[in-house]
């Protein structure tokens, strides 16, 4: 044992483990070429630089081969891509769930407002209703209002719309389609009793730009 331990100006051949002269560039036992190998770690300056032995970081000190690094990097990238896809999908799904709630509430409030009118405040009422619509649907609404106005004033109509059931057909963060049952009660000078119409209304809403606010983009009675 002591015979083989490197002492003084000797080192251990990395190939055959025999003790040889520190300056040897060829092992005298096994004839191995020693130039450029790290037969003696103490004499190996670059290795000492690459292995800073910080106190308490034994596990993290030292170097490893390229393959574990490449493998882990590829794995991390693939996982990051998967997590990114799921995160986008889950967050848009959460937004859709929220849209289903806020969109339905908006559908009820907007439809009751739009389908109600009073001959005494006809202009104010329709102007207010128009603020709940997109520009496109607003134009359609103008055409309807033009047809109804004269009749409403002549007959002194008062129409109240009440949503009696509200459901969602489909909901995404960009568009909500709601199906509502609307009872429209009409009072007019030529009616002895108010008339009730049982309507079935499909309304499409799009975001107004502000959080949780919606505008009516389409409204159809079935």
């Amino acid at each position, binding site marked *: 044992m002591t015979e083989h331990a490197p002492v003084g100006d000797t080192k251990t051949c990395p190939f055959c483990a025999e003790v040889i002269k520190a300056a040897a560039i060829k092992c005298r036992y096994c004839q191995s070429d020693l130039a450029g190998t790290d037969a003696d770690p103490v004499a190996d300056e670059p290795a000492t630089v690459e292995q800073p032995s910080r106190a308490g970081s034994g596990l993290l000190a030292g170097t490893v081969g390229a393959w574990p690094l490449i493998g882990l990097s590829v794995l991390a990238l693939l996982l990051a891509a998967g*997590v990114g896809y799921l995160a986008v999908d889950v967050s848009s799904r959460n937004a859709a769930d929220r849209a289903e709630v806020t969109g339905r509430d908006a559908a009820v409030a907007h439809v009751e407002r739009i389908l109600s009118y009073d001959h005494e405040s006809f202009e104010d009422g329709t102007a207010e209703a128009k603020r709940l619509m997109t520009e496109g649907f607003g134009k359609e609404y103008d055409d309807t209002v033009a047809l109804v106005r004269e009749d409403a004033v002549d007959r002194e109509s008062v129409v109240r719309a009440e949503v009696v059931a509200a459901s969602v057909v489909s909901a995404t963060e960009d568009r909500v389609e709601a199906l509502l049952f609307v009872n429209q009660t009409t009072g007019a000078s030529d009616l002895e009793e108010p008339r009730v119409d049982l309507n079935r209304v499909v309304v499409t809403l799009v975001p107004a730009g502000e959080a949780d606010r919606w505008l009516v983009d389409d409204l159809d009675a079935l």
Partner: protein
Amino acid sequence: MRRLVASGGPRWLVAALAVLVLALLVTGGVLLSQWQEARAEDERRREVLRAATAEVVAFTTLDYRDIEPSVDRVLEGATGDFKEQFESSRPQLEQLSRDNESVSEGRVLKAGVVSMDEDSATVVVVADSQVTNKSTDEPQPRHYRLQLDLVLEGDRWLTSDLQFVG
């Protein structure tokens, strides 16, 4: 050999990458379960609307010349109180439709979900039907506003309540 080792990296980098991979796995696991839950909810919604639509078509469609299968189709998708009520009114319904020579053909125009959880749902359905009987020359249109309660029994959504919304 020394070259390849040198082109690797310090061990702490490997440890850091391992921690990153672990964190991504945990995050991914959480997101994956949320994603699966969302998919299950979408599927549930489709199943609920499909079942409600089929039940309303069955409910608004009957033919006095073939009345028993017409009634059976309604009962097939029914459960609970609704099934009991419909079953108990079966004799009168069959007699009435034979007497009047009623034929009704229903179709669903639209259906939406009012509320829904894992095993119950409330749905509203818009349906129309064309009705003929011996007192009508032309088919008469009927318009319906219906609200249905459905429950999940086994792997089927069955209607436990069906109401006309006035």
